[in-house]
């Protein structure tokens, strides 16, 4: 209820296509991001290292993400990208280094507090609540924002009811934003893969996170679906001002979508910079771009888990 404000005109880019009109209707909050807010560092990873037993997943990683930025993390298979996201979201316990989220610093991020910290994420393998409807999945994204206790819900007290209404409005907004109206009532597990990926994005977005971690949101998609998904990710950023960390294999998509790119190879950060700089960086070319992008996935590094 608190942040349901009247629709505002979008700060849209031309490629938002014809959706713009509908997006602006669906949009509910947070228009432009204040200037100083845009310069704020939302996520700072400092010297983070993680190993499983003797196998190094990644070591001494530094990474910083500003508000409103789309920051891609790329690298060959086994470079440690997913492990990095999992460490940032507290699923793995790093051996060294710190993760700063907003004003708080953690040796291990408490994953149960992630939502409260304003962080949401999607998973490399689908992680939907398969037995719930699409709408219920998205509503679950607001679990951390819920105040009403069990008794209030159970007895249908006014506080619980108005909260439920407000959350429903927010869910409907995201459903409209990501064009999921047609499947809102369907069981999430029954949807095709591409749609499930989109529902996962919706579930992460509904909480209007400051920081969104996307672990291969376009893996296994067709070119059309990827273009669509790119559009949704951009829209999400425009609409909610969310900072995004994105893992993606399709170099073309990464270069078009991201503001900055960090390249990992064998668990080490070898470069960070704007897409154009990265494309010109000889170390990156040697490590990664030398291989034709999607096909390079076949060459998995066996030694860096």
């Amino acid at each position, binding site marked *: 209820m608190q942040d349901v404000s009247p629709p505002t005109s979008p700060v849209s880019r031309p490629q938002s296509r014809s959706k713009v009109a509908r997006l602006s209707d669906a949009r509910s909050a947070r228009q432009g991001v204040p200037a100083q807010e845009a310069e704020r560092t939302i996520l700072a990873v400092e010297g983070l290292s993680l190993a499983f037993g003797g196998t190094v997943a990644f070591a001494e990683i530094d990474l910083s993400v500003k508000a409103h930025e789309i920051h891609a993390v790329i690298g060959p298979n086994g470079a440690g990208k997913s492990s990095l996201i999992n460490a940032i979201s507290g699923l793995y316990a790093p051996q060294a280094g710190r993760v700063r989220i907003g004003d708080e610093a953690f040796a291990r991020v408490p*994953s149960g507090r992630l939502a409260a910290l304003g962080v949401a994420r999607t998973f490399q393998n689908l992680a939907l609540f398969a037995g719930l409807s699409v709408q219920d999945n998205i509503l679950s994204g607001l679990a951390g924002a819920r105040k009403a206790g069990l008794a209030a819900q159970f007895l249908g007290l006014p506080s619980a009811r108005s909260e439920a*209404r407000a959350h429903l409005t927010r869910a409907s907004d995201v459903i409209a934003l990501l064009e999921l109206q047609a499947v809102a009532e369907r069981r999430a597990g029954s949807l095709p893969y591409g749609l499930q990926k989109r529902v996962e994005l919706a579930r992460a977005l509904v909480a209007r996170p400051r920081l969104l971690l996307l672990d291969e949101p376009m893996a296994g998609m067709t070119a059309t679906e990827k273009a669509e998904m790119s559009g949704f990710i951009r829209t999400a950023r425009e609409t909610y001002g969310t900072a995004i960390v994105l893992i993606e294999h399709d170099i073309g998509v990464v270069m078009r979508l991201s503001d900055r790119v960090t390249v990992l190879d064998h668990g080490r950060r070898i470069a960070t910079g704007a897409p154009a700089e990265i494309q010109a960086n000889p170390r990156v070319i040697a490590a990664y771009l030398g291989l034709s992008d999607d096909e390079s996935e076949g060459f998995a590094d066996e030694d860096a888990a």
Partner: protein
Amino acid sequence: MAATLTVSAPRALPARTIGLLLLVVIALGIVPLVGTSYLYEAILTPFLALALAGLGLNLLTGYAGLLSLGSAAFMAVGAYAAFNLSLRLPVLPLPITIFAAGLVAALAGVVAGLPALRLRGFYLAVSTLAVQFFVAWALNRIGWLSNDSPSGIVTAPRLVVAGISFEDARGRYLFSLAVVVLLTFAAWRLVRSPTGRDLVAIRDHEIAARITGVRVARTKLLAFGLSSFIVGVAGVLWAFAYLRTLEPAGFNLDRSFQILFIVIIGGLGTLRGAFLGAGFIVVLPLILARLGAAILGDGFDSGTLEMCQRIVLGILIVAVLIREPAGLTALFDRAVSRLRGRAA
């Protein structure tokens, strides 16, 4: 009404509401007029108690995905708590006693659920077995719990609420029906609430649930507590309304499995499943006995019947898991929609 809370569920069909109303009218209005005491005592009352136990277990296993093999222990806790409360605090009205017994069972459930914060899957299932054996042992060992009865068997108190006796077969049926309707409604409210969503979320993907802000530990304990409350009250019905006696052996591991089977056959994660499953479990032996007697004549003794029942039940469990994991509920829904299709 719960309009704001249920919007997320598939729109309730008017047909379903009508069906439900019809069911209530039959159960409350017609059955009591035409029922025989055999119908009440051998079929309806045990059906209601088992359905309620199934409903409770379904919250835990079907919705929250936490497998329990100790349901009978929670039934026993409920039944014995109610027995002792009515014995030692006779001033309490029966509904209060039953509610308090449910709370005791819920507390036992929360304690039994503590390992769930560390353990998962089989390890957790095995820990619920520990509860099963511990409760059975405690009931056998601690004479005070069964009022120091030498045989261990005690008689349940009389079913009297506000001066009205529910002692006869029909009364016990009506009493059970009232309790079951009330708790089913409560369970329905729960699964439609945001907390109900949390239950399914930790079942379907615990990590994602934690990341989205579901308080996983609290939700698991809540699932154990709420489930055990209902299962505990089911235990009270089983002992007070159906058997009218209490003995530890009535709440053994086989009973736990029976309730699990009700949930599996009826359909995991649906409220109706518990009723369909319980109906099936209660009626199956009666049908088998008739069938056996018709085919084999006198050679079909109770031992053979029990074995046949075991085999049929086992085959059904496997068949349901392979062919229709959503249980009888799914079959039922399909049949209804086919009928509707034909009518249209």
